[in-house]
């Protein structure tokens, strides 16, 4: 059956819903693009994009947020992959509890999280009943604040990262592959890095992309912890300018699509490899 005859077999109402859905997503995007191109009166041009990219703060905040996103992704992988792996391997009964915990960021808003972090880490953390300082006030210096921000972002991104990793692990026979590797002499570290991670790379990449999107656009944590991140920058820009935020929004859409395309490109054959047992 060729493509056109296959298309003809799709019912009328399916087409209607498909077109409505597509318009729902594309119209705002088109409106944003159209608006961003009209910075100069009666001229369609890229002036808004030029101005946005010329701004020194844009480059600085965008680079900084990217670094925070990378740190969050790396730390999330280090924390979540072994956790999800161990639950699947040895503690399946703990799965429901961990799933519930990973959903908490949907229930507890970011504002609560950031005030909790500030409340605890703006003063020294002492060893109980002693004068020994375990952790100095993290909010008092830049590196400490960065640690708090990354930790906060890890919490916010946890539902997405955990679910991506867990779904990825569901597609491979984790237990048998682990036992096969163990019988060949592999250590836990070797098993995770050379067997598990490569076989869930598609899931990791989608988790990483979602984490990236959350971190780069996040405002609450960054604002209250007083860091110069891209989220607060966009927020301020939106309050004072009209065309540049539209231009940057459109650019971020394009960047997201490029990232998704890259994921498809990198993980193209993985569905087949993991499916063959």
């Amino acid at each position, binding site marked *: 059956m060729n493509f056109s005859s296959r298309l003809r077999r799709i019912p009328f109402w399916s087409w209607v819903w498909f077109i409505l859905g597509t318009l729902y997503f594309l119209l705002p995007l088109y409106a944003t693009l159209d608006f961003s191109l009209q910075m100069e009166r009666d001229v369609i041009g890229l002036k808004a994009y030029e101005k946005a990219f010329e701004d020194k703060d844009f480059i600085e905040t965008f680079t900084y947020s990217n670094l925070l996103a990378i740190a969050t992704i790396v730390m999330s992988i280090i924390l979540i992959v072994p956790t999800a792996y161990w639950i699947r391997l040895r503690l399946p009964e703990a799965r429901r509890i961990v799933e519930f915990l990973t959903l908490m960021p949907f229930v507890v808003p970011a504002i609560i999280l950031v005030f909790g972090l500030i409340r605890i880490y703006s003063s020294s953390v002492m060893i109980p009943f002693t004068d020994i300082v375990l952790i100095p006030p993290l909010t008092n210096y830049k590196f400490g604040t960065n640690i708090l921000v990354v930790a906060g972002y890890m919490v916010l991104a946890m539902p997405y990262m955990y679910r991506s990793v867990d779904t990825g692990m569901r597609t491979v026979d984790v237990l048998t*592959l682990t*036992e096969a590797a*163990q019988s*060949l002499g*592999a250590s836990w570290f070797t098993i995770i890095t050379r067997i598990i991670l490569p076989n869930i790379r598609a899931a990791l990449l989608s988790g990483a992309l979602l984490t990236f999107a959350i971190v780069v656009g996040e405002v609450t944590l960054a604002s209250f912890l007083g860091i110069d991140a891209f989220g607060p920058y966009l927020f301020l820009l939106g309050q004072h300018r009209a065309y540049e935020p539209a231009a940057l929004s459109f650019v971020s859409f394009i960047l997201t699509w490029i990232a998704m395309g890259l994921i498809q490109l990198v993980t193209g054959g993985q569905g087949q490899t993991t499916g063959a047992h």
Partner: protein
Amino acid sequence: MAYLSISNVTKQFGDTVVVDNFNLDIEKGEFVSFLGPSGCGKTTTLRMVAGFEIPTSGKILLDGKDITDKAPNQRNVGMIFQSYALFPNMTVSQNIGFGLRVRKESEATIKQRVDEMVGLINLEKHANKYPYQLSGGQQQRVSLARALANRPQVLLLDEPLSALDAKIRVSLRAEIRAIQKSLGITAIFVTHDQEEALSISDRIVVMNVGEMEQVGTPFEIYNFPKTRFVANFVGSLNTSDAEVVDPAKGFVSVDGVKFTAAEGTENRKKGDKVKIAIRPERLSFASEHKKANVVDATIENITFLGSVVRIQVKIGNTKFNMDTFNNPFLELPRVGSKEQVTCSKEAVLVLDE
């Protein structure tokens, strides 16, 4: 001292005893099969040898060294799984070389050993393919090569042929046996398929509900089953309630029809209730050649099974199956006709009720 010694091994999960006081000595180069129905503890025993389960009590010694509590990656044991368990992200060569890389062997050694193993399983043309590009049989051969590349002290095979179709199963089991013999490697093979176990093993351990029922060569297990379970589980079998008539002479009675058994009655008393068992292929028509037991029978049914014709006969009130080799000139009796059926004294196995 045995090469692999499993002594008084018991495994409990909670209150459930899965393996109960298992004792077995395996010599170097021996091929031993664990045979039994699902849940009999055969895989758990294998997994204890592999190190994936720790025995609740007992010891496992390999070449004189206690490996009972050693981690799986510290025992030099190769394992083959039913689901192949090839690493999907690696090619055939990379899969085979994985264990050698983990051991940090030199690249030259890895290449030489991988080439040797790929040759051993005749997959030279597929060395750079990924597992999903191979058939089930090919994947299992890669799994075998991967396990052998490390030169393990013991090769453990956990139902490796179950996921394959019948023809591949037969050819691959012959291949596994040939490779095992050529390398002289000690192997434990877990299966619930009696034909597989009978055809491939030096010795068979028949297991049931966590206990060893019988250990012996395939010939012993098939021809001289010691328990009713073994007799029933291995091969087809006619069983019937019987009563000892004359213990000294080996006479037993089935519904008033007298059979003579070569052994099994000497330690019993007259009137003892027993079971007798006769393999279908040990029964034949008395018109061909009379043996020690000759009894009257009625032909109940005839079933054509390809190489074998199965004839159901009624002796007294009990139905027995009788197997005879098919040939194009075979003259079969009519259903309902009366015939005489015969078998030797040795064919009549007397079992506890």
